[in-house]
């Protein structure tokens, strides 16, 4: 292990999409996979110190299984500057079509500056337009309560949480047979809103969704973009 202590590094940020088959890969498995991808790409990686040195990979907000994304972030620490375009090509060669890098840039911003994430939800319903007013009404309520597993001391208990403050904006519209919601949700680690939670609220509150027994498969979630606190694009 020849690494000099405290070697300086540059952070190269990659923005990538994760779609199709890869929506079934968990965040943990993505971390493991990416690790091997950056090694294969042959980058001048910065390694952690200690007994078991590892490259330093930092991911943006995790994405749950079953969600697709156009807006995933990965920070990789390098000991030397690599050309951005070449870095993109090197990574993409080592990834399959369902996951590809779209942008790369050197940065000093932190993922903690990411305050919101934008999503598009699509529901395929038999009689979709009927559900629209119900969904709008549900989202306009003052409080949107969900039951969530939480911790109380050491024990896991069910808690009721109001997610309304975690929804920055939500706009409901119909697109052909589908009902869509364009929503901006909190990405702050302390109040991160999993988009699945929004779906479960709609399922329990909106008659038509419940009647159709909205199965997990008949809706679709895509993460589209990321914002800072003042709603400017996160970079």
């Amino acid at each position, binding site marked *: *292990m020849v690494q000099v202590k405290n070697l300086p590094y540059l952070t190269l940020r990659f923005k990538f999409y994760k779609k*199709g088959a890869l929506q079934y890969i968990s965040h943990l*498995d993505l971390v493991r*996979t990416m690790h091997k991808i950056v090694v294969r790409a042959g980058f001048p990686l910065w390694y952690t110190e200690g007994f078991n040195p590892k490259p330093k990979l930092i991911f943006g907000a995790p994405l749950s299984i079953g969600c697709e994304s156009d807006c995933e972030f990965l920070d990789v620490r390098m000991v030397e500057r690599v050309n951005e375009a070449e870095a993109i090509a090197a990574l993409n060669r*080592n990834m399959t*079509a369902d996951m590809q890098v779209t942008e790369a840039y050197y940065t000093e911003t932190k993922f903690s500056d990411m305050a919101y994430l934008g999503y598009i939800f699509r529901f395929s319903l038999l009689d979709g337009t009927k559900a629209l007013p119900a969904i709008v009404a549900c989202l306009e309520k003052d409080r949107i309560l969900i039951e969530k597993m939480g911790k109380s001391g050491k024990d896991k208990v069910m808690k009721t949480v109001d997610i309304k403050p975690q929804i920055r904006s939500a706009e409901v519209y119909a697109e052909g047979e589908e009902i869509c919601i364009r929503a901006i949700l909190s990405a702050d680690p302390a109040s991160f809103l999993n988009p699945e939670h929004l779906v479960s609220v709609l399922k329990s509150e909106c008659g038509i969704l419940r009647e159709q027994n909205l199965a997990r*498969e008949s809706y679709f979630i895509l993460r589209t973009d990321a914002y800072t606190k003042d709603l400017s694009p996160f970079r």
Partner: protein
Amino acid sequence: MTSLKQLSSILKSVQKPGRYIGGEMHSIVKDKSEVSLRFGLCFPDVYEIGMSNLGSRLLYHTLNSDPGIWCERVYAPAQDMKAQMEKHAIPLTAIESGEDVKEFDILGFSLHYELCYTTVLSMLKLAGIPLLSKDRAEDAPIILGGGPCAYNSEPMADYFDLMNIGEGEELLTDICHLYMQMKKDGSYSRAAFLRRAAAEIEGVYVPSLYEITYKEDGTIAACTPKYPDVPARVKKRIVKDLDKAPYPDKLVMPYIETVHDRITLEIYRGCIRGCRFCQAGMIYRPIREKSPETLCKAAKCLFENTGYEEISLISLSTSDYSRLRELTDLLLEWTDDAHVSLSLPSLRLDSFSEELMQKISSVRTGGLTFAPEAGTQRLRDVINKNVSEEDLLRSVRIAFRGGKSSVKLYFMNGLPTETYEDIEGIAHTAKRVIDANYELPREERPAGLGVTVSVACFVPKPFTAFQWEKQDSFESLIKKQSYLRSCITDRRIKYNYHEAKVSFIEAVLTRGDRRLAPVIAAAVADGAYLDAWDEGFDFDRWMRAFAACGVDPAYYTTRGFGLDEVLPWDVIDCGITKQFLLREREKAYKGETTPACSEHCSGCGASALGGKTRWCK
């Protein structure tokens, strides 16, 4: 064809959907209109297990390097996925194309463990392929089996069209070429193909071409080929020169975590040791080593193509590789700088490994495991496990000084000639390991010492010196297990034991004959699936199946086989001669040991198979 979109409703409702999606880096997709043979490499267990199988990795690479063949992977869906597939009438598909395996030309099953048999049959059912070889239509795939259980696959004989005896690299290629040739010249029919394969390709066993007759007492009278051109005994096929054998330069990169998620380098085949209970030590002989240069080249190439930062050197006993020092030196020239760690499982700790541990921080000797197998020197001599308690304690001291604090010891209950003294010996040995720690100066002792004693039940296996032995009765094994528990008094010793019921079924299947076929089908009809998993195994279900088919399992276990009896696996010639095994059995009962091949060749017979070897005379 079932597309991912169609499957999406299901994928979102099952555990680990990543098992079913395919599309991994380095998975091989060909244009099906441009290949002449579709091969399904079927692993009768879930994805994480199958993806780690070295043999499957080798065969996937070998078959796909032929432009005329497209070899795809097929795994057993987990219980929850299987239920969904049955509910929605989704057939078994291959990972790469997502296409129905029923349309393939050949399906090759890896038979790595007897308890996977029920999974094999369930997979055929899911695929919509008739279970019995004789019921399959002309256009059904050829169902082929290989791997260690193929050496006695008689219980599965009615279900397989063809068995691969020996190493698959060349054998499978030959089988595929004959198939393609006969399809091309129009001479193909199932019967004609199977007959020609049996007659012309060394290592092919076609069970339907043999007639089994039985004596009045139920033992086998004879196993006779039905035609003169079918070999009376099928000789194992080996790869003669491992340095020239194909080795993958890429590995399919799983998205989800698999059991051996790393580069595995096979350093040699066979074993010089000759433990008398061990089947692997016999069937993979003769011993053939790869050169350090070949291995190092393969390792480097695999590292660049996979990004795995761990390389595991695989063999039956790593320390017995005659050029281990050269190999590790060669690897260390680049692995340390590339942040790649070496792991050397099945390494006996000796002076060399101590040196190795000091030289490189990144060597992982694996969890520290030792396999004395028996608790007394007497019984270790019987089984020809040539390690002494002193060897063990020396290794353990090295380990403790190296900072390792947990040690796992493997033993077996029910070995031939075992007495209660031998069982006490297990507890005693474990205690000596604890004591060895306290004999070290205080500053050299690791913190949090723990010794795990893990005890399996002896299963007599074909092609071992103990192939004729009685298996200990079920009741006796359970009594021994609880006796051992009472002998272990030190709280720092953790005691695990294998379920005797599992070993009992394993024993029936491993030495079974064709009369067991209906039993396996009955167990499957009763829901048996993934029996190799604790949650899949159901002893009562097996007992119901035996009863329903009128088969007495004790015939295969506690009865023992007569020395002059025709054994179900006599039709297979794995190189090791019966004379050698009988000689070893005699020595076992006299408590005499047999030296390792590196010291002296004992003439096991494997050298008749040829092959580039260092020791065999």
